[in-house]
């Protein structure tokens, strides 16, 4: 069975169904979208249980010729890392639909359009994580921008058009650099092994170090914009501030992961030597992102922008883990991507409910919510604890793995990164105190607590955050072989401990 194609086709079928529904019937569109995302999630889980976790080969492989004259193939396949990210995406999708049940109402276009865009986006997300043909990946990478652009520009708030254009221009710029690198790879392949875009084949190319460095940068800059890494981050706060909470969840929770995923799958696999060359520089950028993002988050007055900056700090951790080139850092980084998806989803969704009730996203406009809307306040608090990586919650496991893995190779970087945990306490506890604690301030007295739909939407998110904190093995068992394989491919082995080194092991 062609699992991956099926997963990509299902949302499109849903989108088609919605497109023939009458425009006036928004409820039908919502129900159809919700049902579709549930079916996709179910199908993905069915596929995931068939995944052989100890097999480091690419699985669920599909390959068909697409544009034969250029050697372009429709080639799909996933390893443990891609599987985890696809799982993240398809699990978040129904939650986003259910949580943002009324998000489509403030847009330029109808609810139908909103859900069609969302489902098309889901197809492309599955595609971008499972493509094994570099050109196909590029197509998904760029095409993904279209639905997001319209979701922000058409259904967002405030300066939505400007934010959407900024997002688009940034991404197109990165994409252009990547395209140049892809074309160069194609040329090289023609010289060495015959024209191809096949990822596995391209990873065996030989090139001189200057070429490799340039091609690496083409990919890396595109991914660093997407992730985003300091100093290429400034599109993200604007986009997050303008997008609807659900779109922000998909944008920060899933789409940005394409950046960090790309660093692992493309930068490290295609350019192992350049990866080594640039690692110190990237680690510095990652550390700046951790600390800078945290300080900026502390300084924000707007809740959406604050959450966006916390993500910049978190993406710093993910990048740090990837380029620590240790199995703990690498596995930790992928686990971090999954956990960050859920913890950011919780922050944006609950924060979104707070903001839509209050009609403001300014932190100063809230006050004393714990006494007015206890369920909303406490769920937001748990989401916050997850964001600051409290032990016992899922993000702690991934953050600690990243740090401990980094320490074994780059102790100074790990020490600097550890400062991030103190700053995280500040950027979470300051808004918690302002919005949830203190006396109930005017304008907040009459707010209503979470309704049943909202509770049902957020419960699985919090359950996953808590469950994976205590029992991350189901994910780690899938991630570990792929992460170890990735590092080995790049020519790295884990540093041995001091006493083992002494014992000559």
């Amino acid at each position, binding site marked *: 069975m062609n699992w991956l194609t099926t997963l990509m086709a299902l949302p499109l079928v849903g989108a088609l169904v919605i497109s023939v529904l009458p425009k006036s019937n928004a409820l039908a569109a919502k129900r159809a979208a919700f049902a579709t995302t549930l079916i996709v999630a179910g199908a993905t889980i069915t596929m995931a249980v068939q995944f052989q976790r100890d097999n480091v080969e690419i699985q669920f492989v599909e390959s068909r010729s697409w544009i034969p004259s250029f050697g372009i193939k429709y080639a799909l396949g996933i390893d443990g890392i891609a599987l985890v990210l696809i799982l993240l995406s398809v699990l978040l999708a129904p939650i986003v639909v259910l949580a943002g049940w009324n998000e489509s109402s403030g847009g330029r276009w109808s609810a139908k359009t909103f859900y069609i865009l969302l489902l098309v986006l889901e197809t492309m997300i599955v595609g971008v994580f499972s493509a094994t043909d570099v050109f196909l990946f590029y197509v998904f990478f760029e095409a993904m921008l*279209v639905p997001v652009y319209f979701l922000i520009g058409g259904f967002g708030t405030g300066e939505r058009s400007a934010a959407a254009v900024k997002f688009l221009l940034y991404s197109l710029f990165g994409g252009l650099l990547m395209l140049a690198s892809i074309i160069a790879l194609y040329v090289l392949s023609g010289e060495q092994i015959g024209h191809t875009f096949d990822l596995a084949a391209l990873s065996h190319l030989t090139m001189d170090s200057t070429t490799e460095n340039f091609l690496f940068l083409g990919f890396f800059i595109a991914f660093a914009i997407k992730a985003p890494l300091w100093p290429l981050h400034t599109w993200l706060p604007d986009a997050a501030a303008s997008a609807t909470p659900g779109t922000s969840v998909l944008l920060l929770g899933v789409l940005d992961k394409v950046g960090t995923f790309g660093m692992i799958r493309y930068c490290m696999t295609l350019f192992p030597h350049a990866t080594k060359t640039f690692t110190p520089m990237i680690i510095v950028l990652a550390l700046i992102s951790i600390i800078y993002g945290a300080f900026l988050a502390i300084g924000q007055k707007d809740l959406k922008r604050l959450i966006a900056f916390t993500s910049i700090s978190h993406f710093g951790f993910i990048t740090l883990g990837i380029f620590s080139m240790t199995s703990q850092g690498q596995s930790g980084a992928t686990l971090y991507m999954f956990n960050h998806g859920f913890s950011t989803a919780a922050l944006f969704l609950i924060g979104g409910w707070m903001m839509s009730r209050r009609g403001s996203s300014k932190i100063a406009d809230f006050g004393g919510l714990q006494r007015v809307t206890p369920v909303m306040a406490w769920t937001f608090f748990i989401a916050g604890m997850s964001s600051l990586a409290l032990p016992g919650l899922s993000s702690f496991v991934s953050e600690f793995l990243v740090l401990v893995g980094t320490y074994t190779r780059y102790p100074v970087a790990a020490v600097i990164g550890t400062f991030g945990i103190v700053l995280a306490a500040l950027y979470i506890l300051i808004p918690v105190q302002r919005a949830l604690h203190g006396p109930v301030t005017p304008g907040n007295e009459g707010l209503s607590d979470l309704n049943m739909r909202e509770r049902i939407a957020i419960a699985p998110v919090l359950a996953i955050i808590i469950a994976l904190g*205590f029992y991350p093995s189901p994910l780690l068992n899938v991630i570990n072989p792929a992460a170890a394989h990735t590092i080995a491919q790049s020519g790295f082995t884990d540093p041995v401990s001091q006493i083992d080194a002494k014992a000559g092991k």
Partner: protein
Amino acid sequence: MTSNSLVYLIALPLFGSAVLLLAGRRSDRWGHLLATALSAGSFGIGLMQFSQMLSRSNEQRAVSQKLFSWISVGSFEVDAGLMLDQLSICFVLLITGVGTLIHIYSIAYMSHDHDRRRFFAFLNFFIAAMLLLVLGDSYLNLYVGWEGVGLASYLLIGFWNQKPTYATAAKKAFIANRVGDMGLSLAIMIAFATLGTVSFAGVKEHASQASTGALTAIGIMLLVAATGKSAQFPLQSWLGDAMAGPTPVSALIHAATMVTAGVYLITRSNFIFDAAPTAQLCVAIIGAITLLFGAVIGMAKDDIKKALAASTMSQIGYMVLGAGLGPAGYAFAIMHLLTHGFFKAGMFLGAGSVMHGMDDEVNMRRYGGLSKFMPITFATFGLGYLAIIGVPPFAGFYSKDKIIEVAFNAGGIKGITLGVAALLGAAITAFYMTRVVILTFAGSKRWDDKAHPHESPFLMWGPMALLALGSVTSGFLFTHGDALRNWLAPVVEQIPAHEGELLSPMIVSILALVLVVLGVSLAVIKYFLNEVPETVPENVTIFTKLARRDLLQDAFNEAAFMRPGQSLTRALVKTDVAVIDGAVRGIARLASGSGKALRTTQTGFVRSYAMWILLGAIALIAAIWMVTL
């Protein structure tokens, strides 16, 4: 040996907190009873384990339970595992025993609070987290409990967080603790990089093969962690503010148990500190500084809870000092920790009882002569008082004198300096505790007629009486036949007592007693024989003024960290918009030829977007077509 019941120690109170939080208001009527019963159940399991331990030989007493593999990546393998040995059982009994008493006390103390159920949910959560802290079999498991108790402490300090100052106090505690937690994180990372393991057993086994430098680094980082959690210098400033929490919380978390976790961490890591003398010396120095720091602040506080909090800081200083003295001191550090658990928890509950009868007044200048109205509170508080100042045969006499003695016998200038500091601390303790007792219970009344002081109900004085009993007897029981030292011997390496001693126990006791009498006399002269002003006297020495301002701890932190941090944040926020985003916008404008072009993309954005796509597609096809030629 393995035991399958360890997990229930933690599971019972954890279950309780989950039920109370999820059931919400539905459990208002019975929530406190369930929480108390589960805490008592945990105590029951602890007693059962203890009796089973007693029936085995001293080398066979430790039991463990592996639950599942928690995190396993490459060679980093951490199990969710529990371990109960001679050291952790002391804590288990203290946490669940005193914890249950405080649950009972709180039923009455919090009876008028609208959110009593939530209070009990947090208390149960605290018990579970604290038990995990002392039962975890690796540093990483301990870490989960370590931050868990920090969270419980945050939630309970801020229990009445509708008051902004209380919310701020809670946040301050969490952040000071997080600074300490950084130390614990780094200690674990260094341990893994050096020893390849983070379990207690593994680290103990391999520590001797590691370099002294690495062990010193681990030790110093563990000390940083301990200073945060145990309110030791220089991370002590949160504890005074933490008194914003309801008084039972101050008794349980901020006196008897959580704040002593640093002492547990250091004692548990004895195999690291014994191999890293520099780190061990740092521990002793920090302990000595803090015991004096807290004692000095204690002299100047008029708020009864803050006076007791300063005292807690100081007494934990004694414990840290003891633990910093190595094998000779570990057992006495733990002994003082346990006796302090009794007498300080008892006195805090006594303070709560006084507040309960005085409309939540905390200012001791508004008390006076309360012994007539609250005889039981006075009696139990008084017994705790005798224990803390170290009058024989009360508990503190045994535990504190031993630490002073070991300090003197540490040898050389180090021994004399630490010993003198500890002795001086004893004198100051006698002074400030006498001051508290006189201001509260003796002298003439300074409260107005609106207050109607009365004795607290049985549910409150019962626990106080039991803790007072502990304050009287525990010291004797622990030292009788060196019971606690022998008990702990398999966990902490021991050296024979009385080896090359500078001062004999008798001389230390006499010296200490003389200083205690001196401290008590000064306080009696100043506060009993002289009039106590109802308002705070302003014509005082600079020394008193500094002590009132907590020796400028907050002023220092604000000047050194908070305000520069705020300025930096503001500057970065401005830079991000003006410089980084500005540069990007500038480049974009440059690239698009003029600002006008960019504006068009923003106005007719759908059409422009289509054009972009078209251009991109053309470029793509053209590029591929060209290179295949």
